[in-house]
């Protein structure tokens, strides 16, 4: 297994040029996530209109995996309904599940799924189990934000 499978071009790009960076005034949903063992931190603001994410802003610091995952996520959820987002979360999580991933969600490397797009670049993380929590940070924070919005 070569290290380049983990650090793909698109990941480095999102790490160095994070999308949707910043914060929103009076966001409709907000959450903060940390990975206490690594120190990675993430703040997520969402603007929602009629149950659809119209804007998203992210702040934080951490490794290329956690930060690129957040950046790609921010792109993937913009414009989506919360139901679609929940589906996306499930698909992403099952991709990150070392046990079930390859056989689920059309994630067979030979049959790339349609849903995740760029995010599929994070597949390589599965081979580095301790880094999975880095890739997941943005997504657990997103779940938290959706719960925040429900309240």
């Amino acid at each position, binding site marked *: 297994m070569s290290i380049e499978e983990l650090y793909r071009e698109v990941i480095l790009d999102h790490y160095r040029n994070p999308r949707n960076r910043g914060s929103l005034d009076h966001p409709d949903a907000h959450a903060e996530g940390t990975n206490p063992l*690594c120190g*990675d931190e993430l703040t997520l603001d969402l603007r929602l209109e009629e149950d659809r994410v119209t804007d998203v802003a992210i702040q934080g610091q*951490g490794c*290329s995996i956690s930060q690129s995952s957040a950046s790609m996520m921010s792109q993937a959820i913009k414009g989506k309904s919360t139901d679609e987002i929940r589906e996306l979360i499930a698909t992403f999580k099952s991709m990150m599940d070392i046990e079930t991933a390859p056989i689920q969600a059309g994630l067979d490397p030979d049959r790339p799924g349609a849903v995740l797009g760029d995010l599929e670049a994070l597949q390589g993380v599965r081979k580095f189990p301790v*880094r999975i929590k880095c890739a997941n940070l943005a997504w657990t924070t997103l779940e938290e934000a959706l719960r925040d919005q429900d309240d």
Partner: protein
Amino acid sequence: MNDLSHLRLDFPVLQRRVHGKPLVFLDSAASSQKPKQVLDVMDAAYRTYYANVHRGAYLLSEESTAAYEQARGKVARFINAARAEIAFTRGATTALNTVAFGWGMDHLRAGDRIVLTMMEHHANVVPWQLVARRTGAELVYVPMTDDYRLDLKRLSELLDERVKVVSFTGMSNVTGTMPPVAEIAGLARQCGSLVVVDAAQLVTHAPVDVQQLGADFVAFSGHKMLGPTGIGALWGRPEVLEEMEPFEGGGEMISDVRLDGSTWAPVPHKFEAGTPPIIEAIGLGAAVDYLDKIGMESVRRHEMELTAYALSRLAELPAVRVFGPAEVDHRGGVISFALADVHPHDVATILDQDGIAIRAGHHCAKPLTRTLGVPATARASFQVYTTREDVDALVDGLRRVQEVFRVD
């Protein structure tokens, strides 16, 4: 050149291969590996004479007790102390909690000051925060200078009659900084303060003589000095140990237990509640024997040479920035660094693929990491078994990181 490379053969784990590559272990500041001389002593103790210590009225218990108490003697001699001045603890953390709670709860009150430094490990911060909260005492932190030394000028300005405790590390586990312990202890004692030295790193990187340090307490862990996990020691000045309250209550630490109260056993047993880490103490004794045989002067020389070599080799990589003093006589073999904009975790993961083990993170010293202005650092740290070849492998590995991350 002070060559210790023959020692490598004593450390079985160093024969390990990782991801198909020979292991290059550069995380000894987190915990050191153990020589077979230590492992064999512990295993043999369990196999031939193990029993609970003290109170035993049969041969095995006598033998265990003798081995346990001999280990105390060895640890004492290692830092030039008397046997009764050494209490075995679970580690440096427990030793520091013992001081903070056992001494602090009875001696600190609102308005008193506890002076720490910005480069302390959490083990020397959190216990004091807990005790400060319960007693109303106030915490003050001595800053570092721009060249990663302790700001002694600020320290002496801070010292006044409100200061009841000065507790600081003998060697930073992040920057490697070795502050002048005896000088600081002298200043602190002048204003009547208790002096506590966190020697978790110091004790395995340089000779320590408690008669010259001028401290009241010195705390350290076995697992960082070639000994097993689960053991550490607290050295205390006899008068202070004598009047201090125990931290934990239980068996062995009592003289008498009545329904309405108890009296304590003599020092150091007062501080050893319950069944102690018996085999771990014996293992620490063996580790001390091993270090004694090399000689701590020689260990220190080895590390200075290796650290100088590593600093010069790292200087070949313009993208590497080292957080720590440049002069090896003010620092030990712990090198924290950043590589361009690559996050330390990514550095560690890429190095790991080449079999190179370094640590990435805040190294249990968040206040310090914040001061450095980075979320985390990468850290390579040395022990007696570390060689120039290990340093060379690190530099090659970092070149590979630069390739993967396209750093020029």
